[in-house]
């Protein structure tokens, strides 16, 4: 029974992880491994696309909490996009939107990564 799947899409300086299905205590280790692998490859610009995620519990949220400090320490970030209202509510309940950048659409999120790496940015 496959209840969780990750599709990895590598860009030039950014990897998108499309997470699909249910993210709970059973499936969280799969996501943990995928993010650890990116870190091992020194890919620290990560966009997590929630469009096809149907469910998340605190075990799933814990995966992001477990990596965010290290990734930001390496000048990267985990950003998120395309959450259903149901998923966003869980993030919101815990105050997570204050520590993560969450975008409604994937294009918006991608654009923020591009801005960050563009040398002409006047941030």
């Amino acid at each position, binding site marked *: 029974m496959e*209840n969780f799947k990750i599709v990895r899409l590598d860009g030039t300086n950014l990897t998108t992880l499309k997470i699909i299905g*249910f993210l*709970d*205590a*059973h499936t969280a280790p799969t996501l943990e491994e995928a993010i650890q692998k990116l870190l091992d490859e020194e890919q620290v610009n990560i966009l997590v696309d929630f469009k096809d995620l149907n*469910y998340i*519990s*605190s*075990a799933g*949220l*814990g995966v992001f*909490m*477990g990596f*965010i*400090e290290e990734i930001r320490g390496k000048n990267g970030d985990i950003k998120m996009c395309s959450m259903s209202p*149901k998923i966003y*509510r*869980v993030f919101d*309940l*815990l*105050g*997570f939107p*204050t*520590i993560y950048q969450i975008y409604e659409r994937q294009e918006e999120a991608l654009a923020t990564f591009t801005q960050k790496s563009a040398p002409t940015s006047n941030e």
Partner: protein
Amino acid sequence: MPKAKIEYKLRIPSQTENLEIIRFFVGKVAEKVGFPEDDVGKIELAIDEACTNVMKHAYREAEQDKTLDVAIQIDYQKLTLIVTDHGKGFNPDTVQPPDMKEYLAELRVGGLGIFLMRTLMDEVDYTIKPGVRNQVRMVKYLINRKSSKVVN
């Protein structure tokens, strides 16, 4: 909502691969009883967090044949979830929900389950008898139920 008290029970191996089945079972009952979709989602998440705690902490690794019990009691306007295990238990006073402001500021990991359970449900309490029977009981009231009059 049924007029008489009804109980649904599920006994299941204490392994995380069964969380999906537990959520489905509890979610279906909550839906049938008339909870709105939002609340069904909250109830599913609360039972997941309670059972995850048991699966992760109640039994030792070697005790993989252990089971947990999920009971759902429907009593007119109230849904009660009871999760029972026979593991080592814990002292509920030592697992106070975290202060979320501090939690986020320090980017801590784990320990969110109990906070969520208390936030999602109307009542949460524990009865702990280590090795004998540990129970977490969570209640959700059906305030906006469809039929407002009940004749017993």
